[in-house]
Structures are given as C-alpha cells and as structure tokens.
C-alpha cells in the first residue's frame, strides 16, 4: 500500500472502522486520480513518448559563488533535480549565528542550470530534522504557484513534480510557505538558469551572487545566536543586508577572482524578502547587462543596475586591469553599515594607459572661475613679495635669526651637548670645542656637511689635534633643524655669523660628498 494515498483523515477514519481489507480496495482505486487532501497528490505524470525517450540527466547543483558548467547540448533532456531543505545554524557575521533555512545547505541555495525546453523532474526533500514544512516556487515554472502547491512538504518528507522550462532566463526560486517573508528572510532563495536554446556567449569565469536581508533581534554585529525579528521585518528595517548569506562571504580569501583579459559573468539575484538592489561594481563598467535577466537583449555599458526583490540579472564584463573591485549595493549604507559588500580580485600585469595609478600629489587651490584663479595667482605673488620685504628688513631679519637660534638651542641641548658640552667647550683631546673654534667658523658648508654626514679622524682645532668620531645626524634631524642648530652654534659663546637656511642644508644633504 502506497503511503502517498493517505491524504484524507476523514476517509481514513471511516477506513479504520471498515477494516483494512476494504481500505486497501478503496485507496487503491483513489490513489491515481484523487485530488484531495493537503498535498494535492495526483500521481506521476504520463509523459508522451517523445519526452519519455529524451536522454535523462542528473542536474549538477553548486553552492555559491560557484556555477554549474555551461550546457553544450543542442537538444532537450529530462533533467532530474534533487534539492534538499535543511535548517542549519551558521555564521551570519563574526561572532553572530543564525538559523538559516536553506536549499542545499547554503544561502543562497544551490544553483540549478538547465536548458530551454528541458523537462525537469523536481524532487524537493525536507530533511527530518526540519521544524517546518517548506515548498518551492521557481519563477522559471509556468504553472500555478510556480510549483509551490505541488512541493508543499512536511518535515521528513519528499515531494516530486515535473515542469517544462518554456522560457529562457535567469530566475529566482524561493520558499512560498506562510509566513513567506520569514521563510525567505531566513535564507530560502536561490537561482535557476534556463539557458537559451542557442546557449550563452562563452566567458572565462562565471559566478553566483545573491543579495538578501536579515531581520535579527539584535543590532548589526551584536554577538551570539540571533532570532528572526518579526517587527523589524514588517517595518522593513533589516540590521543586515548581505551578499551570499553572511557578512564577508565574498571578501579576503573568499573573494571571487579573475585574471586580466578575462571575461566574467555574474549571475546576480535578489532574494529579499523586501529590498531592491542597486548592484554596482566599483571600478568596473558592465559591458553587458541582461536587465531583469531576460537573456536575449543586453543593455551595454551600464554602471549600476537595479535588481528587484525576487528578480535577477546577468552582468558581463572584461577585466582590463588588476586590483580589487568591490561589489556593492549602491544604496551605500547597506554596503557600509549592513554588510552588502563583496570583492572581485583581478590578477595580472598593470596597464598604465588604461589606469595609471596615482601619478602626482600636489597642492590644489580649489576649483574656481578664471577670475578667482587669477586672483589666487596674484595672492601668491604678493606673499612672495612680503617674504622678500621681511627678509630685507634688518629688524625682522634679526628677530628671525634670534628665533631660529632659540630653536637650534633646543636641538643642541637634546643632542649635541653630551659631547660638545653645554658651554660649547668640548672635552680636551676627546671632543673638539665649538666656542671660538677656528675650524668650525672657517667653512660654513663643511660645518653643515659634518652635522649631516659625521666626521671621523684627526682634526686640528685652535692648534690642538683631536682624533675622534662624530656620528652622522642626517637620519635624525630635518633640514630646518640642522639650519637652526648651526645658527645657534654660530651665534653663541661669542661666535658671530649669519643664519643658516634649510635650503642650504638641503643642497648639501643631497650631495654625495
């Protein structure tokens, strides 16, 4: 006795009274034709011979971001799809767990790839550990509910139905059991690709990405196990908007990849349950977008494409330069604050004609009208004149030198005093004096050079030979600090001299002796 006949408790109550023998007779006769009870079981479809004789294939299912291989057949087939529903606890973000309801164990669910005209025998298996009944509404199906009523399946049961793929396209599938927003909101969606009879243009890489939002009781990033929040769902206020079921599912070593020169196709869908995506890849232009996933007439040269909840699109582009390209929902708080962000990493040689990288970093005076720009030039000239006037004014020049010497003193008392001593007299036979030093005052450039590069070996200072070593300071002091400290030394302890400028120091720093 086939158990699938057991679908009407009232009949069966009567049967129980009447006895099993009668039950057998009654149910055998009602099995094939009966259209009664909760699962609408009608028995296997009788297929015409031309379909029965088609080759039978087991569908290859892949989890995101992978896509099953292209179909090269030039004829229709009978394709058997076995999709398992599991309710699983998995990572939603770092430290955040969630019970996802999945098709095939992943969010989005397994990618299904068939060809226009194929006759699909679809098996939906609801794992015994499931708490809830589920079903599937495939937007690729022509028929009431897209298969929903025919696949309504209690935990620990399996449903089968058959459909023919009449229209090519990339279609969303999802659970349609009440309350639908919660089933979809827990991850029950995926994509089914019905390839056109003539196939799709060949590409080098194909990827599978879906966007969906999660309505957690906790706010974004709140650690621990999170539950579905019905209030937030009804208000459409999701803490998470993510690609492929988790924050960071497409970043770092999980990023999708390509090599320079390759053509990439992304099958992009939106599970929702509510939000529409403004899908964009930062730094790429979609050479082709098949809008709303009708695979016949692409739009060309698209920046951002709008993908509705319960809809999809296919985008194609050639990657011309290496680097990391960021996938976002260009409703950008979703990318910045809620997780809607992925990465495409492109490897290969740079092409600096197409993209040079940063060439120059310069001061920018602001975008202005010509008159404003002229005015800015005039202002710069006036500043130069003022600087020249200040320099030629002896009072100001004196004050400037005094200030420079004070700064230089700070450098000296932090660095030089240990050897040359605070009073500039040095230590006999070990460190030469600076106060009244003929050697020092004889050659200004040599003085700069010694501070920058150091000096090793005997020198004669004020008649005394001192054989010592001074370490170079060019890695320690800036040009201005060298100028300041020398100005201090040249104008202290009775020494007299002009101020040093940073330009003088700079000129010598760049010399190799």
């Amino acid at each position: 006795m086939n158990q699938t006949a057991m679908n009407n408790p009232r009949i069966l109550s009567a049967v129980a009274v009447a006895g099993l023998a009668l039950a057998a007779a009654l149910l055998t006769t009602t099995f094939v034709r009966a259209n009664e009870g909760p699962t609408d079981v009608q028995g296997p479809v009788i297929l015409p011979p031309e379909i029965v004789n088609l080759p039978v294939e087991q569908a290859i299912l892949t989890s995101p971001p992978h896509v099953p291989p292209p179909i090269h057949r030039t004829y229709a087939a009978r394709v058997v799809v076995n999709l398992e529903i599991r309710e699983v606890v998995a990572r939603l973000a770092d430290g955040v767990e969630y019970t996802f309801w999945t098709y095939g164990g992943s969010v989005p669910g397994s990618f299904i790839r068939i060809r226009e005209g194929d006759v699909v025998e679809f098996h939906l298996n609801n794992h015994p550990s499931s708490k809830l009944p589920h079903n599937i509404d495939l937007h690729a199906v022509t028929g009431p509910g897209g298969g929903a009523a025919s696949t309504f399946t209690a935990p620990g049961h399996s449903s089968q139905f058959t459909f023919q793929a009449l229209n090519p396209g990339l279609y969303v599938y999802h659970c349609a059991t009440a309350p639908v927003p919660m089933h979809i909101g827990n991850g029950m969606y995926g994509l089914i690709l019905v390839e056109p009879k003539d196939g799709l243009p060949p590409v080098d890489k194909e990827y599978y990405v879906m966007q969906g939002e999660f309505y957690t009781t906790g706010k974004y990033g709140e650690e621990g196990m999170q539950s579905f929040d019905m209030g937030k769902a009804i208000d459409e206020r999701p803490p998470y908007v993510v690609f492929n079921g988790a924050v960071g599912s497409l970043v770092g070593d999980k990023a999708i990849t390509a090599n320079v020169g390759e053509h990439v196709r992304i099958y992009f869908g939106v599970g929702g349950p509510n939000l529409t995506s403004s899908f964009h890849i930062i730094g790429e232009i979609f050479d082709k977008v098949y809008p709303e996933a009708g695979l016949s007439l692409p739009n060309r040269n698209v920046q951002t494409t709008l993908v509705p909840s319960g809809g999809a699109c296919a985008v194609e582009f050639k990657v011309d330069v290496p680097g990391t390209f960021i996938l976002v929902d260009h409703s950008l708080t979703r990318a910045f604050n809620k997780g809607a962000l992925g990465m495409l990493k492109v490897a290969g040689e740079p092409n600096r004609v197409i993209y040079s990288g940063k060439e120059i970093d310069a001061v920018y005076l602001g975008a202005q009208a010509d008159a404003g720009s002229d005015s800015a030039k005039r202002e710069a000239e006036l500043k130069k004149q003022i600087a020249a006037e200040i320099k030629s004014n002896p009072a100001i020049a004196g004050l400037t030198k005094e200030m420079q010497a004070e700064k230089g003193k700070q450098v000296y008392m932090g660095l030089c005093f240990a050897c040359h001593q605070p009073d500039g007299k040095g230590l006999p036979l070990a460190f030469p004096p600076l106060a009244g030093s003929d050697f020092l005052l004889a050659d200004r450039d040599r003085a700069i050079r010694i501070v920058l590069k150091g000096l090793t070996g005997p020198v004669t200072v004020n008649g005394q030979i001192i054989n010592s070593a001074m370490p170079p300071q060019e890695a320690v002091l800036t040009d201005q600090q060298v100028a300041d400290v020398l100005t201090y030394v040249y104008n202290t302890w009775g020494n007299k001299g002009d101020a040093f400028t940073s330009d003088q120091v700079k000129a010598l720093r760049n010399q190799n002796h």
Partner: protein
Amino acid sequence: MNFLPSFRLGVLALSLLAGGSVAFARLDAKLVTIPAGVYTPLLRTTKDAAAVPVAAFLLDEKPVTNAEFLAFVTANPKWRRSQVSPLFADSSYLEHWAGDLEPGPKAPPGAPVVRVSWFAARAYARWLGQRLPTTAEWELAAAAGYTQPAGRTDEALQRDLYAWLARPVPAVLADATTARANYLGVRGLHGLVWEWVDDFNTAMVTGESRGDTGLERDLFCGAGTVGAKDPTDYAAFMRQALRSSLKANNTTTSLGFRCAKDLP
C-alpha cells in the same frame, strides 16, 4: 522499561487485563480547565464565522511524554513500531526510539513523545477515554500569555516563541515540565513541540464546498494573507502551514500531542 514508574505498571497491568481497550486516567497527567472563550480563525472566507465560540473543556497540563506513550504501546501491541500498519503511521514512526518497548537515550521518559502520527495520537487519547483538542480549543488555550490573558501582547512569551521557531530541532528534547506554564496553567503549548489537533487538516476547510483551486494554495506566497485576521501573527501562520502540510499518518521530529476532555 526500567524507568517506568511503578504506578504506571499498575495501569499497564489493568490495561492488559482489559484487553487494551478500556480507558484509564493517567495517574499523573494533570488536566487543566480551560474556560469558555472565543476562537478567531486565522484564515477564513467571507462566509465563515469571524468568531467561533468554544465551550469550557479540560486540557493536558503538558504534552504526552515518552514514558506515557510507552505504557500505551505496551498495552496496545498494534501501535508498537514494528507492528504498526503503514496506513496509520509512516516509516519514521517512533524512529528515534531504541526499540519497540525501549525509548532509549534519544527519548528521555519525561520528554514529549514525537514522531507519532495523528492516528496514533488519537488512539492514545481514546485508550484513556479522552480525545485530541480541536484547533479552536488548542488555539484558545495557546492564546494566553505567561502573565496575562492575551499572549500576543505578552512580550516575554512572544520572545520565547520566536526564539524557539528560530532554533533547529534538538537531537534530544527537554523534559516537558521545563516549559513555563501559561496564564491558564498549561505548559509547552509554545516553545516545546508542535502538537496534533483533532481537525488538523480542516482548519482551512470550513464545510462549504469549494472549487478545485484548493484552499491550501491560499497559504502560499503573498496570497497567504488575503482574509487573514492578523497578518502579523507569523507564528499562527506557521502552525497553520504545518497542519496543512501533514497527512494523518505523517510523523516528524518535532510533532507531538496532548489530550483533551469534555468537562464532566
């Protein structure tokens, strides 16, 4: 068998003497009086009553446990796993039990019995001279909060309910007495297991004849909320969906039952 309480053996002996058909009250099964009230169906057509009056009745304080169900199958061999007819219970019936008369480690004595069919649940209730609650009765009792008569506005109950809905079914269920009692003194209506009701698959079908389009489809997708009394009561939709997905011989890992009785 070794954990079976001694009083249970007494019941068992009497049952066996009486051929397994005479009803005995479970000695420890406490029945709670549910006061008369009104049940508002979640989904209805314009011809259905908006409110269904429910008479006062008695309802098990907690769902039927493995220990209690063991007594039943011991007294009624045809409901043992190895002997039950596939007409009345699918192949997963009591699958987690270690043996016919041995619940084993996955089915602790005090935990609710699951993987039982509607037929088995009904037979159990009849064995005790009781019955399964109707949808209206069950929903009326389950509408109570923890600390107030209306559960829909009891935040603690709603939080526990949705937290439970968000968790997968545990490998071993908790003891039925761990469930917090609601305002009426009933435990585990929410947050423990799903429960069979007597009219589980008539919830959508209210007596008038309908076309072939089938009422069950109204539960799918957005159409699920057309005519719903409260489209924000997601948990009610989930119970409704579960009941609609079941056939009377089905069993699942999270579906048990409790008994009800008319007031004397």
